């Protein structure tokens, strides 16, 4: 019972974050065979038969995300994605919903920093109807004004509702404070003021410019005959008119120098939520697998060093963890936890000590072995379903990673040694350059947390936007 009804579920800005939970490893596990075809109009098609359950999973990536939102109109990519099902040339939003629900289909769309993703699942027996719905949304969305107005109004309130729950917004503040003027600073879903500036015309233009075949990857996995499906896809998606792809331009992200702290005041908080770290690595960084192994030991599991210190041994928190989110440019690294107001300083001190000790002592052979076995043991269920597989091959294609990303994962994990881990820690787990974001009751914790940084900023959670303050 008492399933806390997270109203934030309605507008899940944290969804992208949860994707980090997909750590990795394999156990002589290989990707099922799949085929890549580039259609004449430039669309990249990936097709994988995966038998067992009569479901077909579609996963499309439009290679433009919220990092391309115009300044001041943060949320444009997210809103555009959200409107795909809200009216097409042949269906109203209501008709789309009726047709989709009648066959028990699912349809999700959203934008992260790097790209827009659109996914859908249908029973194999409904494949033709499902394909018609999916392609209708991607190819023929026409953004009726009433639907634009509705979604924008809902999204603005969604941002406000999410601020009632510190956990749902802490990484919006963290991303903003960490990335400053880099586009990764922008809140993917926009904020209370930026959403008000978005207009139908801008949405249409964004769609026309970015939703083009040469800028799109479409992966389909599940129970079907690949040859037959390819023909169907060539008919529907092959008819998509060719247009030049937009130029993706995500600048390099570099780590912040020195120490900075943002305190977001939530006067009713009985618990402080904190995240600290710096800019991490890109999805193609040559250290990426080694970093995952090392982070698994540091803050990636229940028995990790961080959770052992902050939860198991001290009882400061229900959970402490760390993650790297590799992206096109260097994505964030963060240590994250929460604790009651009174233990805010001891908990942050302890997290810093764990980090410091990690840098000093490195990783033991036993810890390294555990991290490797854990990653390898827990990987197979992450590519178990057609939906997981379609999403995985689409994102690998987007980042330019080949099948060895999975097929060689075990070997790459095994290649990490105690010595190489030491270098990884030295290079990727910062000590002197750290950005802190705290959400909590400023009147209780404010004075004490100043010690963590040379520069401190403060704002109220009720103020519009995240960081920098919305204008």
């Amino acid at each position, binding site marked *: *019972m*008492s*399933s*806390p*009804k*997270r*109203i934030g579920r*309605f507008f899940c800005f944290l969804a992208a974050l949860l994707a980090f*939970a997909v750590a990795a490893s394999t*156990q*002589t596990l290989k990707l099922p065979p799949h085929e890549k075809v580039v259609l004449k109009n430039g669309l990249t098609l990936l097709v994988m038969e995966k038998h*067992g*359950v009569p*479901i077909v999973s579609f996963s499309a990536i439009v290679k433009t995300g919220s990092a391309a939102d115009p300044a001041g109109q943060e949320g444009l990519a997210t809103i555009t994605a959200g409107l795909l099902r809200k009216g097409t040339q042949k269906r109203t*939003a209501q008709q789309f*919903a009726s047709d*989709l*629900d*009648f066959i*028990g*289909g699912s349809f999700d769309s959203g934008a992260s920093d790097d790209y827009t993703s659109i996914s859908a699942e249908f*029973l194999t027996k409904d494949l033709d109807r499902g394909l018609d719905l999916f392609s209708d949304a991607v190819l023929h969305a026409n953004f009726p004004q009433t639907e634009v107005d*509705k979604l924008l*109004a809902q999204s603005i*309130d*969604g941002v*406000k*509702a999410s601020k*009632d729950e510190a956990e749902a917004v802490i990484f919006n503040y963290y991303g903003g404070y960490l990335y400053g003027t880099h586009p990764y600073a922008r809140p993917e879903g926009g904020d209370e003021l930026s959403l008000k500036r978005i207009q139908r015309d801008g949405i249409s233009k964004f769609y026309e410019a970015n939703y083009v075949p040469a800028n799109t990857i479409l992966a389909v996995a599940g129970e079907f005959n690949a040859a037959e499906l390819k023909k169907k896809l060539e008919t529907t998606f092959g008819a998509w008119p060719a247009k030049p792809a937009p130029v993706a331009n995500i600048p390099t992200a570099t780590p912040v120098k020195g120490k900075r702290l943002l305190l977001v005041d939530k006067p*009713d*908080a*009985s*618990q402080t939520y904190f995240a600290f770290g710096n800019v991490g690595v890109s999805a193609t960084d040559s250290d990426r697998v080694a970093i995952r192994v090392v982070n698994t030991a540091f*803050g*990636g*599991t*229940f*028995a990790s060093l961080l959770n*052992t210190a902050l939860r*198991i*041994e*001290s*009882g*400061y928190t*229900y*959970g402490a*963890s760390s993650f790297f989110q590799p992206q096109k440019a260097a994505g964030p690294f963060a240590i994250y936890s*929460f604790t*009651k107001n009174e233990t805010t300083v001891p908990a942050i001190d302890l997290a810093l000590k764990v980090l410091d000790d990690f840098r000093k002592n490195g990783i033991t052979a*036993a810890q390294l072995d*555990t991290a490797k076995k*854990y990653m*390898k*043991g*827990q990987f*197979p*269920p992450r590519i*178990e*379903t057609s939906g997981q597989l379609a999403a995985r091959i689409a994102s690998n294609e987007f980042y330019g990673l080949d099948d060895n990303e999975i097929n060689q994962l075990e070997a790459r994990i095994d290649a990490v040694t105690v010595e190489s881990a030491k270098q990884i820690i030295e290079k990727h787990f910062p000590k002197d350059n750290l950005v802190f974001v705290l959400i909590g009751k400023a009147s209780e914790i404010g004075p004490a947390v100043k010690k963590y940084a040379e520069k401190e900023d403060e704002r109220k959670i*009720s103020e519009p936007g995240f960081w920098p303050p919305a204008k």
Partner: protein
Amino acid sequence: MKTIKNSLLMAGLVCAFGLSGGAANAQNEAQQFPVATKTLKNGMKVLVQSDHSIPNVALYIFYRIGSRNEHPGTTGLSHFFEHMMFNGAKKYGPGELDKVMEANGGENNAYTNQNLTVYQDWFPRSALPLIFDIEADRIQYLQFDPKKIASEREVVASERRLRTDNDNGGLLDEQLWATAYIAHPYQWPVVGWMSDIERWTMDDLKHHFEMGYSPNNATMVVVGDVTSDEIFQLCEKYIEPIPTHAPPPPVTTVEPEQLGERRLVVHKPAELPLLMIGYHIPKTNDPDFYALNILRTVLFQGESSRMYQRLVDKDQIALGVLSEVQPGFDPTLAIITAQPKQGVDPATCEKEIYEELNKATASLISDQELEKAKNIRLVEFYHQMRTINGRANTIGTYEIYFGDYTRLFDAAKNYSAVTKEDVQRVAAKYFGPNNRTVATLLPENEGKAKQ
């Protein structure tokens, strides 16, 4: 969060009731997965389903003890106990369970609800004997170290702050149950009242362990890269020797019929108000289960549902509206949650929800709606069946709440049999004003202004 275990409740179990509708298909699908069963000499029932598609195993142990077996003063003890089950036994001391499991590629979690405490292990098949050794160790020889208890108390308090005190939905939900029930133990929160979390004693813990953790009070489900023979052999070696003791005394209190609407208000600082309405409905294993799910699907599921169309799309007074049912050995609640838009009085949402409920009572749903709802149930069935974890959870859910896992195979037939008249009947029977509890959270300033 990935590294956080011991969640109060996995959403999966709540959703586990979305079972199939479309007759023969679902039955055939279910029959592709034969389940082997065995009852050990000490009374524990074991269910095994082999699936070699990935080299992994999902192992669930369901203990029939939850917050319904607690009393004022010790609320939250089942959940706290769940945490203690990770804090050391005889062979695997404090902190060792997770270390050893991870070192062998395994991961675990657990959850507690009103009825059950459930332990979950996910691991590569190579870790198979180890997992049995660990589970047998903690069932028999749990340690009660006062230092660990003190620190775990803080962890649980932090969990409570996370999920309830600093979460508007969690807070309002707790108040709703506390108001909808006046006699039955479903009235207190699974996590426990803060004053109980702070005060329960070593004796309370020991008593709880003796009461709940007997093999004859537990059911094990194993799905994945295993054979039933090897699982039964491991059970004989590790589990069967564990002695049996008396299970928890039956919960005899019956919640009296609600005779009129109950209302409560929570004032707190918040950006947006929140509305929750709870209706008493029968226990999970009731013939009306299927018709209720069809009704809820028509009203709440998907953007074509009646409530979404009315409140979110047409009148634009809510950001979202949903319904949830917690499984129960005893009569439980169907809860409707609406997130009003800013500036919208929750009473406006309330009024429209009642109007839609009244329509479902006054006239039959359409053929198309009925067929849609059955299709949605069918797809949900496949979604649960597509992973070894989903299957372990679903098999266990049917075995525990319906008393027999084979009821899983009847679900399709049972949904298929639901008629429009059944749907109308359950709407009228359960969703009337006298049977409801209405909980409203008002942002503090707004609330004061209205008074």
